[in-house]
């Protein structure tokens, strides 16, 4: 960084932007691939059960598996439409 760099203040470099984007993307992609094989099936079954009672669409159900320490947390989100 030359003189101009010193005076222009701390601007985020493009390499830092690349790193940040990659970290977000890759952690997301790893989560998808490291999830157990049953997650998509579980999501479909839950959707079927909820559908019996409420009209919801596929994207209203999200299933995630997070790791916290040595335990895994299964997170279910069902968004119910209003009314």
């Amino acid at each position: 960084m030359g003189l101009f760099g010193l005076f222009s203040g701390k601007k985020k470099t493009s390499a830092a932007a690349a790193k940040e984007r990659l970290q977000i993307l890759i952690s997301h992609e790893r989560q998808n691939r490291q999830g157990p094989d049953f997650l998509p099936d579980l999501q479909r079954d839950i959707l079927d059960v909820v559908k019996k009672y409420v009209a919801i669409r596929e994207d209203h159900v999200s299933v995630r598996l997070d790791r916290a320490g040595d335990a895994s947390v299964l997170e279910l989100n069902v968004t119910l439409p209003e009314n």
Partner: protein
Amino acid sequence: MATVVTVTSGKGGVGKTTSSAAIAAGLAQAGHRTVVIDFDVGLRNLDLIMGVERRVVFDFVNVIAGEATLNQALIQDKRLENLSILAASQTKDKDALTEEGVGQVLDELAELGFEYIVCDSPAGIERGATMALHFADHAVIVTNPEVSSVRDSDRILGILQSKSKRAKEGGKVHEHLLITRYDPVRVENGEMLSKEDVCDILAVKLIGVIPESKAVLKASNTGAPVILDQDSDAGLAYSDSVARFLGEDRPMRFVTPRKQGLLSRILGGGD
């Protein structure tokens, strides 16, 4: 037992074939009987990088199909007596590489006394690439310090960790990260991911950093693995990488900018 070393990346054009040729030549130079195999069926290029394109009579697919013996298809390198090359076929049929056929050829190479089998994987995640990954004991992940290359390398790591033979048998493929086309000046200016950034993101042990170098094109022009050019930074960096692969501890070279004059530093960063 032969050790299978697969050179892979996911993305094309990052330096897999250059690295395969250099690593195989480096292992042979270190005294190990080594064979390097081109898995890019339909688009072979390893023969050209190794300078044996006019000596290919039979190829990998011929051997799998039983149309030639392994000894007929192996091309002995003229520079290094420990090194042989097995070219890919130029037929378009990627399905020619069956798991059984490839496995059989690898077993036969081990019986012939080869210590290292270097597999030059094609780009992508189709059959040639998955076959090259399947039998890997070690994988060298070739990555450019650039977003799409890093992302594709991570996908390849995922495949190695779930679909390779070792993974399926409950084991693990030894993973090594090789960063190529590295430009320390651009890294210092914040225009390029640093080797630390790439290691952080991929979480794989770094085996070497190959600087962006004119020597690589020069080597491919003449059909000699760049590692043989020991006057070049890239050649020396590949030698270091192979030494590290074989267990030696060597410091990284060519990873900081060459010292600039005071004046050019005051006036402004790089080019």
